[in-house]
């Protein structure tokens, strides 16, 4: 029960009790007077007169009191409701925003001030973590560059034996994988901090989808996976061409990788109520319902037993989600284990 309703009920109870007390008082007074004046009265005269007084004067007063009380309570609690709405808007991306103070210095103003101070502390911690991640990725690049450079020199050294070369090449692959993780992490951290500016230009999404379908076909061939482009409506969205291509390739790559041998991938792009709706479906192992909410989490790799053999850095869908939200769109993942997995992206049309 809300504070407002509780206060209103208490207030109503107080008013009704007051009315009762008033009624009893009036009744006693009237009976007194009647006895004093020795006025013969019809039976129940005092009761009747009391009831009249209560109904005619008391009841309207109580109703008025209730209305006024309700209004007072609502007014008194309005800043709390505003505060609640404002606090609800706070999330990890707008921690630098502050709630407005009324300037009255009352209790609620103080509460707002405390909230602001708390948000500022959170903001500080979040920034600290981001800067830490950025610094860490930057620092990791230097040793990776040196390692890669030296291994490459060793790999192409004519004195190295074939077995040694195999080992060096394997190590280079791991360094490249590590570098990809570091790159993805830096990208997402910068995106979190709002440090990435995207282009804002008309992009023919259907052309990008056709191009992506052609690449997906080639990517899918080694696993004998068939790629179909079911539908491709001609449409334009506003955004960053490079990032949209990255989004498409990420989703296509996922659909191919998390598939079954000789499986299939279906792509479609269609216009729907002012949105471009893009769908990537694939037959594959799918994902248990309890894990589906986590697919956009960083480094989430699904069922470990399935994904151990699948190459990737575990950031693809997180990056896809960032690109979609940077284009004011939405992304949705639906899967039924053993059946179809579909990732649907909705982007506003230009």
């Amino acid at each position: 029960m809300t504070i407002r309703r509780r206060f209103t009920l208490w207030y109503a109870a107080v008013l009704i009790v007051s009315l009762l007390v008033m009624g009893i008082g009036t009744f006693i007074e009237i009976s007194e007077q009647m006895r004093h004046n020795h006025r013969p009265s019809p039976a129940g005269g005092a009761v009747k007169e009391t009831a009249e007084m209560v109904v005619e004067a008391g009841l309207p007063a109580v109703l008025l009191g209730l209305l006024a009380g309700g209004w007072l309570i609502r007014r008194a609690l309005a800043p709390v409701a505003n505060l609640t709405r404002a606090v609800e808007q706070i999330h990890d991306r707008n921690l630098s925003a502050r709630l407005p103070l009324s300037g009255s210095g009352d209790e609620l103003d103080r509460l707002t001030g405390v909230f602001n101070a708390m948000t500022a502390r959170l903001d500080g911690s979040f920034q600290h973590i981001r800067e830490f991640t950025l610094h860490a990725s930057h620092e990791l690049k230097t040793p990776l560059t040196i390692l890669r450079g030296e291994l490459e020199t060793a790999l192409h050294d004519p004195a190295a034996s074939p077995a040694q070369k195999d080992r060096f090449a394997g190590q280079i692959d791991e360094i490249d994988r590590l570098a990809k993780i570091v790159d993805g992490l830096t990208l997402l951290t910068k995106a979190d901090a709002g440090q990435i500016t995207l282009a804002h230009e008309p992009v023919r999404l259907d052309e990008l989808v056709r191009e992506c379908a052609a690449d997906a076909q080639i990517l899918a061939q080694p696993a004998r996976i068939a790629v179909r482009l079911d539908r491709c409506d001609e449409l334009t969205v506003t955004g960053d061409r490079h990032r949209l291509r990255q989004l498409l390739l990420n989703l296509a790559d996922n659909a191919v990788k998390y598939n079954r041998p000789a499986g299939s991938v279906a792509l479609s792009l269609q216009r729907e109520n002012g949105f471009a709706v893009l769908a990537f479906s694939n037959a594959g192992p799918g994902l248990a319902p309890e894990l589906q909410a986590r697919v956009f989490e960083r480094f989430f790799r699904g069922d470990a037993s399935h994904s151990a053999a699948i190459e990737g850095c575990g950031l693809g869908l997180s990056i896809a989600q960032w690109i979609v939200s940077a284009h004011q769109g939405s992304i949705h993942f639906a899967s039924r284990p053993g059946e179809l997995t579909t990732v649907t992206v909705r982007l506003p049309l230009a």
Partner: protein
Amino acid sequence: MRVLLVEDEPKTAAFVRTALETEGFAVDVFDRGDHALAAATDGAFDGIVLDIMLPGLDGLSVLRRLRSQGDRTPVLLLSARGQVGERVEGLNAGADDYLPKPFVTAELIARVRALGRRGAEAKTTTLHLANLTLDTVSHRAERGGQVFELTAREFRLLEFLMRSAGQICGRMTIIEKVWDYDFDPGTNLVDVYVKRLREKIDNGFEPKLLHTVRGVGYVLKGPA
């Protein structure tokens, strides 16, 4: 070709220097941006390899000052940041090329060499390598009288490799030039395409033209 290498990390500077010198470049190394700017202003270099994060003066500032002085020496930017937008920022500041760290040494060398050739290459419409011919107007490829069907992407890949014949092409360069991606796709797209292309142009022919350079990328070259 005389190259100015500006890199503050000693080990990186050392292996890049060795690699460049092995390939016949004369290399001057500086570890501070301000010193490098002075050296670049004084000396005549054919190319500059410039790290972005530098003490003294950062790489982008060095580049902007050079360009504002009217110095057009080709510049290859190196960056540990390797971020979206940074490439564009670097090219806008006047860089001729951009390579994110960790880079492939052979790719760095190929690009430094390309700096020296910038603008010099004539665009011929028919490319030849051994008995392989590619007509860039009709998109027709043939080897030894046999004509190949190429998809648009395969055609661009083959054209790029043929125009860079004899030079090692790193995956990053291929992704940039053939796909026009400014990001690492994180897939084996290049390898899968090269494999398909190889099946078309090399299967059943001798000598093989398309070779893998381990840890680096690919090279298309005729018999020595």
